[in-house]
């Protein structure tokens, strides 16, 4: 009996070892095909995923691996060489000029309020005062008598950085009541709170608002927050969605970047509510 058990244990071990061997053998086959790794901004990742799928279908034997982790990671990984291409959802900073940026689309960031909020427009100063806690009641900006709920983004998001630059604030100046992670959580939070103010990607907000979610996008500096105004370059809070590389891209990376900027993927870019590059006027 005991002997039997030992035998079966030995079989088990052999089986596991065999699994490893088989897994090991299948490796070289994969290595022979080409692989492209993209990491970075969560804003770009869904688009990059779609681009990757189409790119793979056009180039059999190529695998494109897309991982998210924020713009900062896109910069970090492409610099270190862990990723072939980094995704960065903003312009490169002065200290990042060692990298090559290739804009594949544009995106705008819009202030959103609950659809029932009577406030129709906010000046830049009012937005700053709301976010820095100088205005705590909506009646100060012509709304109803109710406390403002300030929705801010979590540390490290490029949406946050872009908004901070626009509002000329430091993150520690912001008196937030809710801190959110991604766009959809922000939209849900504002949709569930009639007195909330938040900022999210215009594409995502326009899509949700069009599907009956009770939010509204506010004009910024008098310009309506629409994908159309991001496209014609008049909307003040817009950002390029960049693919970055450490050196001038070549080989597969170059092919992918050219593909991502070409007219044959405009339908994919527009499906994500971004603005394709070649259509942009500025």
């Amino acid at each position, binding site marked *: 009996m*005991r002997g039997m*058990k*030992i035998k079966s*244990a030995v079989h*088990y071990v052999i089986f596991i070892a065999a699994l490893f061997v088989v897994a090991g053998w299948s490796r070289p086959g994969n290595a022979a095909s080409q692989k492209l790794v993209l990491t970075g901004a*969560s804003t770009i990742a869904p688009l990059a995923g779609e681009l990757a799928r189409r790119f793979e279908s056009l180039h059999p034997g190529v695998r494109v691996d897309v991982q*998210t*982790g*924020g713009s*900062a*990671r896109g910069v*970090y990984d492409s610099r270190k060489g862990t990723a072939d291409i980094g995704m960065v959802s903003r312009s490169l900073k002065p200290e990042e000029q060692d990298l090559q940026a290739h804009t594949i689309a544009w995106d705008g960031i819009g202030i959103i309020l609950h659809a029932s909020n009577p406030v129709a427009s906010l000046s830049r100063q009012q937005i700053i005062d709301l976010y820095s806690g100088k205005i705590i009641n909506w009646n100060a900006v012509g709304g109803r008598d*109710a*406390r403002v*709920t300030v929705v801010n983004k*979590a*540390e*490290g*998001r490029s949406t946050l950085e872009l908004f901070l630059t626009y509002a000329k604030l*430091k*993150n*520690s100046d912001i008196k*937030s*009541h*809710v*801190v*959110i*992670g991604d766009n959809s*959580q922000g939209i*849900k*939070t504002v949709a*569930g*709170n*009639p*007195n*909330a103010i938040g900022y999210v990607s215009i594409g995502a907000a326009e899509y949700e608002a069009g599907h009956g979610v009770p939010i509204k996008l506010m004009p910024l500096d008098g310009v309506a927050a629409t994908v159309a105004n991001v496209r014609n370059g008049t909307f003040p809070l817009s950002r390029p969605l960049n693919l970055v590389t450490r050196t001038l891209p070549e080989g597969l990376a170059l092919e992918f970047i050219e593909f991502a900027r070409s007219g044959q993927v405009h339908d994919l870019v527009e499906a994500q509510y971004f603005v394709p590059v070649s259509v942009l006027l500025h």
Partner: protein
Amino acid sequence: MLWLLRGAAGIAASVVLLILLFLAVESWPALRQISAERFLADPSWNPGEGMYNLAPMLSGTLYAAGGALLLATPLGIASALFIAFYAPPHGASIYQHLVELLAGIPSVVYGFWGLTTLVPLINQLHPPGASLLAGILVLTLMILPTVALTAHAALLAVPADYLRGAAALGMSRWGMIQGIVLPSAKMGIVAGIILAAGRAIGETMAVLMVTGNVVQHAASLFNPIRTLAANIALEMPYAMGDHRAALFVSGLVLMLFVMALLGLAAWLGPNRDA
């Protein structure tokens, strides 16, 4: 076979040790560059500006878990007593299944329900809605089945002889529960509560969705808070360098917290028969 079992047990044990080691290694850069007291004394948590105060998140974690335990413990014990001693047999089994079902609901579902239903409700009471209170209520729902099911198991483990003895003495049902059942099931119930506390402290997604995640010491139930676990989930994908290491420090703190709790449970364990 014995060797296989030993091997499996060894792997399980070494995984825990490896996780601890990994947390320590990853948080080492932060521990070396940022002195320990700064994690409690910095003006705020703003890793982008080099400030790393974990204290508000520690208090947030404790308030949320403590509040949930305060609510879930009496409710859980009451429902266990109800199933064991008061409910008609058929009703008891239905009720039991319902509690088990509650235990099986994924935490994201609780979070989603909290975000879309509970938070707007609290917002009408007192803005902003996303608050310590919402976190406590969602956590209560999540740990209630743990408390109720372990308490029920502890009640069932009370020797039937005790109950017969009590009946023979002519004690009332409540007298029997109060004088005999609860004291002899005490350790089992406490173990369940500690288990629930561990879950409450570590719960991430549901809490992240309803507590507002503002880093501050809560002054009232309606203030938003951020827990340690939520902090890691919220910032880890976007963190690098010292910021990332500081998040590993909060993971280490969380792990030590739960280990201390388990240690407490183990310390209470041997007194079981006393």
